[in-house]
């Protein structure tokens, strides 16, 4: 085992343990204070067949229907957003890239706001048929459609031109922003409130059905993506240089955009927009453990999961008397200063 393999194993194990600990803390915490860590573990032991102790039904229901779905969604969403961020930063060779750049976020937001504002009137037929799935489906559809549009506009003679894609993304995101603005202008007060909460992000919509839907899209993508670690390392040198090294550049680009869009699209559809995680988690990993994508991709996923669990705990703890704080508020409020501190440290060490 060489030193890199050793380091990778160590870092990933440590992060995985952190995620498990935070998951248990998160699951032990809630308004129904008879259910704490011990009860959560008992229910888990019983469900996995390790224990046959009798547990009262309320406890089981709280754990299985309220606490665990939330924990599972935080892990899935955090991992998906952070890993997609890492992949896109590598692909665009730009440490500032985040999922918003390829249009997933703005497309999803547009889909969501259209359903929220027009769902009761123009689109009520569609919304009646789809029920509670109308919003997530519209968000996913919007995200994927806008990504597809930007991707195709940025192709020259069959090759995706990265700089052109960044600029096209800017223009299309601005257009989507304008359409969202129009929708917000047309919205009633109640719709405005619904839209605001969606755009701040939330893990509270989680039921097992929604989580299943996110998992179906995001988990396969998370399994496939680490296979692109070495090509992503080579892409750091530049597209021409990666091509000289035998990397099938166009094929890699197409796959990375497709995988990232499905991961982010699925997450945003269920949780709304959760800012900053996709940008910050890969940076933190890079600053701590270096830029090698063989470590960066899985470590970003684990750190993203840990950070979102932490943010969710904070969102509920900080709400004191209210329902809970929107999670997007917490990710930026806590994430940004930490990120800034790390940047300043790196600047001092001359790493820029």
């Amino acid at each position: 085992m060489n030193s890199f393999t050793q380091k990778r194993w160590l870092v990933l194990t440590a992060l995985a343990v952190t995620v498990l600990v935070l998951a248990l803390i998160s699951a032990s915490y809630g308004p129904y204070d008879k259910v704490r860590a011990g009860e959560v573990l008992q229910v888990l032991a019983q469900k996995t067949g390790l224990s046959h102790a009798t547990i009262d039904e309320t406890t089981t229901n709280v754990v299985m229907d309220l606490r665990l779905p939330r924990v599972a969604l935080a892990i899935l969403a955090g991992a998906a957003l952070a890993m997609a961020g890492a992949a896109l930063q590598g692909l665009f060779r730009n440490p500032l890239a985040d999922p918003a750049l390829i249009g997933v976020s703005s497309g999803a937001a547009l889909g969501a706001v259209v359903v929220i504002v027009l769902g009761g009137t123009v689109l009520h037929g569609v919304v009646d048929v789809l029920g509670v799935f109308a919003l997530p489906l519209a968000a996913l559809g919007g995200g994927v459609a806008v990504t597809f549009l930007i991707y195709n506009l940025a192709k020259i003679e069959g090759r995706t031109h990265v700089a052109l894609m960044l600029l096209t993304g800017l223009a299309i995101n601005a257009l989507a922003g304008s359409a969202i603005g129009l929708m917000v202008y047309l919205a009633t007060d109640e719709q405005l409130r619904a839209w605001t909460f969606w755009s701040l992000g939330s893990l509270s919509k989680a039921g097992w059905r929604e989580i299943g839907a996110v998992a179906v899209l995001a988990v396969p993508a998370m399994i496939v993506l680490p296979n692109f670690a070495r090509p992503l390392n080579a892409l750091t040198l530049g597209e021409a240089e990666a091509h000289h090294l035998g990397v099938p550049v166009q094929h890699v680009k197409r796959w990375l955009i497709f995988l990232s869009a499905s991961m982010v699209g699925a997450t945003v559809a269920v949780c709304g927009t959760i800012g900053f995680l996709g940008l910050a988690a890969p940076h933190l990993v890079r600053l701590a453990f270096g830029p090698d994508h063989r470590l960066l991709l899985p470590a970003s996923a684990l750190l993203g999961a840990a950070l979102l669990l932490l943010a969710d705990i904070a969102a509920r703890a900080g709400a004191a008397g209210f329902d809970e704080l929107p999670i997007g508020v917490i990710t930026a409020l806590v994430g940004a200063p930490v990120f800034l501190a790390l940047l300043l440290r790196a600047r001092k060490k001359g790493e820029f």
Partner: protein
Amino acid sequence: MLTAYQLSFSRGNRLILDGIEGSLRPGRVTAMLGSNGAGKSTLLKLFAGELTPNNGSIEFGGKSISQWDSRELAQRRAVLPQESHLAFAFPVREVVMMGRFPHLQGSEAPHDREIGDAALHKLELAALADRPYPTLSGGEKQRVQLARVLAQIWEPPASGHRYLLLDEPTAGLDLAHQHATLQAAQEWARAGAVVLAVLHDLNLAMTYADDAWVLENGRLAATGPVEEVLQAPLIERVFQVQAELLPRPGHARPVILIEPRLSK
């Protein structure tokens, strides 16, 4: 043998290369010379397979380079880029190891690590191996890139030849490293590789190249052994300068003195 057949390339309406034909031979260093905008970098990119010619073709090992599997070609062909920016702060050793990419079966074998270390030593970079690439000076970066490129085609393939394309390999290097770089190029050629280097310094070309290709406005003005090609009248016409070739005691090839052309 790396052979160009009636290559032409245009961008928009502008014809950049026209009717390029000739062979680069294994065992020899070929210097590609010409003034700015003559088409040197474009021709290098065509040889690299990075651009596709509008007309004509390039053959290597008996088939067109567009028909090569990209990985198999990368095991035999390496390209030193002109600029060497890196998006993320990889340590020097890992940048050099990226050169082994086309040879890896799954993970890095100890053999690949040995080659990486040998390439670091060859370019006197062992002391910098753990430094983050962005903290290096311009010349050091250029040497790291050369080490990466040499690691890529460190050993001859089981069959056929290797080829090495160098786009202004001496730009930004101090004198000792300019010579060290071209000595490495020469060493690769002597071991059976095809080597093509874009150069601006005619004396370096005269010292290290075996053949020269001189480009003038997208066409080949002259090709052949370097001492036959680099004659005063050609230099004066192509580079718009005055040239004088002086014999050098103890050396087979002359030294070239350049002065600005007198205004008419």
